[in-house]
């Protein structure tokens, strides 16, 4: 059973939990979201997506080619799809939901990375991968797919931060923000070991602290420590470098800064997840304007990869976040009535 928490997870974890209290401004008025779009788009805002059917291929964006996989779900063409942004290691996870899913391989991830290696020699890995470029990749891919109406976005871990940054930069393009075990902060405020290391390495008595931290990160992310996805086996050394470049790119970001005041922020977290401590994701969620916070069941304690390990929990989380009366459902065309 998925438990929604209405208080800080540590306190709430001891007993049966009440459903979350409604947050202020939780309702989204659908009509407001569609100002300025054409009548055709109003009638079928995701019509081009519906026409595509199952699709897997590359689309061009201003930051390069991005691999996109479209899996049509219920009422494709009418219901907003869910964009799925995978975790750092992007090993081909599939999102458990009946909604239409647009799965993106961001820069440095899976097929997008393989294409970059094949065509450019892995140019995207020459420096840390800027999360702002990832936001451009998301929006560019949606544009390329002809999706101009708002979509929902689900991000796991690294993908969670990119999802949040996308909604922050393009609030008109993103409806519900669903964060699963999201990246909170690199040298996490919730973890004592990392916190001490950050404080000491970044001390002004240590000009080489940043270099030392980078060396430690690269060493840990070197080939052999992470399971290389089959699609990247021919490029295993580059995969380790990609993890490093993706990871270092996020160093300056804190989730609580990004989602502060943001509406429709829904968080799913596993108890005692060391990579995304609930105490930290809760602190970020508390700053959001509206949404929900869900703590996964105890048998998932310390599990980070909930998409793979707990598809049923994820499915229910998505259903509950989207709500029965889908907040982004279309306003009926003029002259028609809701059934």
């Amino acid at each position: 059973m998925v438990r929604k928490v209405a208080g800080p997870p540590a306190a709430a974890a001891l007993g049966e939990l009440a459903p979350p209290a409604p947050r202020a401004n939780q309702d989204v008025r659908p009509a407001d979201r569609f100002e300025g779009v054409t009548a055709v788009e109003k009638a079928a805002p995701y019509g081009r997506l519906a026409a595509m059917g199952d699709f897997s291929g590359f689309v061009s964006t201003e930051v390069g080619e991005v691999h996109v996989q479209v899996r049509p779900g219920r009422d494709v063409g009418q219901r907003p799809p869910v964009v799925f942004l995978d975790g750092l290691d992007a090993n081909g996870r599939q999102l458990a939901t009946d909604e239409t899913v647009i799965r993106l391989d961001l820069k440095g991830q899976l097929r997008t990375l393989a294409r970059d290696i094949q065509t450019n020699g892995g140019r995207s890995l020459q420096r840390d991968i800027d999360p702002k470029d990832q936001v451009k990749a998301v929006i560019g891919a949606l544009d390329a797919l002809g999706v101009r109406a708002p979509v929902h976005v689900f991000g796991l871990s690294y993908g969670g931060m990119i999802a949040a940054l996308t909604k922050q930069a393009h609030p008109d393009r993103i409806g519900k923000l669903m964060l699963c075990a999201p990246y909170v902060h690199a040298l996490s405020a919730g973890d004592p070991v990392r916190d001490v290391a950050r404080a000491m390495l970044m001390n002004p008595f240590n000009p080489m602290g940043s270099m030392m931290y980078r060396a430690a990160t690269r060493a840990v992310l070197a080939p052999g420590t992470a399971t290389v996805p089959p699609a990247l086996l021919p490029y295993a050394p580059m995969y380790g470098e990609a993890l490093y470049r993706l990871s270092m790119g996020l160093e300056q970001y804190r989730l609580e800064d990004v989602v502060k005041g943001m509406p429709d922020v829904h968080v799913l977290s596993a108890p005692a997840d060391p990579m995304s401590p609930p105490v930290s994701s809760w602190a970020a969620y508390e700053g959001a304007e509206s949404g929900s916070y869900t703590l996964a069941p105890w048998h998932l304690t310390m599990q980070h990869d909930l998409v793979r390990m707990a598809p049923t929990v994820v499915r229910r989380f998505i259903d509950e976040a989207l709500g029965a009366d889908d907040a982004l459902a279309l306003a009926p065309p003029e002259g028609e009535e809701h059934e």
Partner: protein
Amino acid sequence: MKAIIPAKVTVGTQSNLEPLIRQMLLEMKGLDGQGGDVTDEELAAAAKAFGEELEGQSADTLEKSMRRTLPQGVKVAALEVERDGMRVSTTTTYALDDIKKLPILRMSFEPGQPRQRPFADISVALSQDGLTIEGMPPPIELNAPDVPEEALREHALSFALRIDLPVLESNAVEDGDGRLIWRFDGARLRDRTAEDRAWIRVKYAPPTSGRAD
């Protein structure tokens, strides 16, 4: 008094990165659901890779960036890293043509990064009684609650002074070679309060070539 007093100031850091690297490995295993503890073999492989990474890095970029942003008369005399497994020590020596410049030093460690003021909490006062240097090491800012004492003691900072004047009094340790050294471990730095003063304190005899204002 007005006098030019050359000095060498050395700051050092000692850090055991094993806990950090172990934690990162643990997180990597959690990333794709492998789970489980970090094995000795995994830690040894990461330690080896860490050493290779660190040795492959060049301090030239840092040194150039620092040199570009330091004021005239101040040089980086040494920038060194020593490693023993995952324990890393750094030593940075600044050569100043006049110790009075110490508190105002600002430098950028990496191009484009904000300038740092490592000695902002240290004062230098010269009078007819002598040269007094006192102050505090940079504070450390911890966010995590309940950081274990042993984790803090894996890290330390040091501050050393070499000035060619007789020492009248100090709370430092002398290294036998005319150098005064102060050392602070992470636990002491964590416990620092706003009321703490002069963890670093030394009074030298006045320079004989100075003149009264």
